[in-house]
């Protein structure tokens, strides 16, 4: 019986403590304001004019389901600027599922390229 009373007292004290803390945090604008008074408290604590504005075009793009330039910019290339040749090589490698070219295949490719670059017979001296 005595234990029950003690527990009840402790519970009540904890409730008061949480109520006190909540009240202070509301007054200081530290929790989401939900009432007129909370809003006034928050306005007394912050100066919205000091906050950098967000471009409303970003909101419109979001509402329309479009991607803004700024959002596209957030996709940062992993390796920074990549020269065209390297990029082409990487794409080619991706097409081979990352596989290497064997010496034999490379020799055949070079031969094919050389043949392709040769001018057709009869055009040599024109």
């Amino acid at each position, binding site marked *: 019986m005595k234990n029950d009373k003690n527990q009840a007292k402790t519970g009540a*004290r*904890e*409730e*008061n*403590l*949480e*109520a*006190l*803390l*909540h*009240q*202070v*945090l509301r*007054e*200081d*604008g*530290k*929790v*989401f*304001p*939900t*009432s*007129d*008074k*909370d*809003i*006034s408290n*928050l*306005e007394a*604590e*912050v*100066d*919205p*004019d*000091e*906050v*950098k*504005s*967000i471009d*409303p075009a*970003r*909101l*419109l793009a*979001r*509402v329309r389901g479009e991607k803004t330039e700024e959002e596209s910019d957030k996709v940062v290339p992993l390796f920074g600027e990549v020269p065209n040749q390297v990029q082409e090589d990487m794409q080619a490698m991706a097409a081979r599922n990352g596989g290497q070219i064997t010496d034999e295949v490379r020799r055949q490719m070079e031969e094919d390229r050389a043949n392709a670059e040769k001018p057709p017979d009869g055009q040599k001296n024109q």
Partner: protein
Amino acid sequence: MSLMSSTEGQLKAKVEDDDVSLILRMADKNSNPKDAEAALVIFFSRHHRLLKAFTERNKYQSLGFDPEDFVLRTFHKAFDKADTFDAPPNLSPERLLKRVQAWLFQIAKNEFFMELRKGLNKFEETMDPGHMLSPDQEDLNQQVGDVEGAAPVLTGKAAAVRTFLDKLPEGDRQLLETSFNFYDNNARKVVIPEDILKGLANALATTPEGIKQKRKRLLQKLKEHLENK
């Protein structure tokens, strides 16, 4: 004041329009999308910085929130839910402004909860309306308790609480302050739903039990701090 479809949709929203007029135009987006978007831009430009200031001030970045993205998401939701705004008739312009701001912050709070839940499990995006606070009801409940001087028992102790909070390490203060977004006015204590608790634990790189224990210890410390005053 219940919102009804605006009939003068042809007129374009103007900077000097009051908030209710802008919200009406937003609510009418199906019949006049261009005007609704024009109203949204004005409404956003007028109100977004207070929410951004709040988010930055409370360092929600450390919970994984990008303040700008959070603000944009809130206003997008406000645009979608414009027809849910309601206010009693004959409010003064000042009271009406506060009502609009409280509505926006209630939407933001719901988004905040949703984000924490997403942090729990990206594959289980809960949209359970049971956890969504009704903007107006919660708002009204709180306003009933907002009569001047309604918390006399707290007077005099507030300064000691602030001193205590100021001395806490950043992480502890963040945990304690964030947890009080889940204060239940009826239970008179913080009640964090289990799924949100897990999401919050993920965001703070701890466990749900870790949060509970840490809160308990911090409240005990606060109690001792107040007793020694």
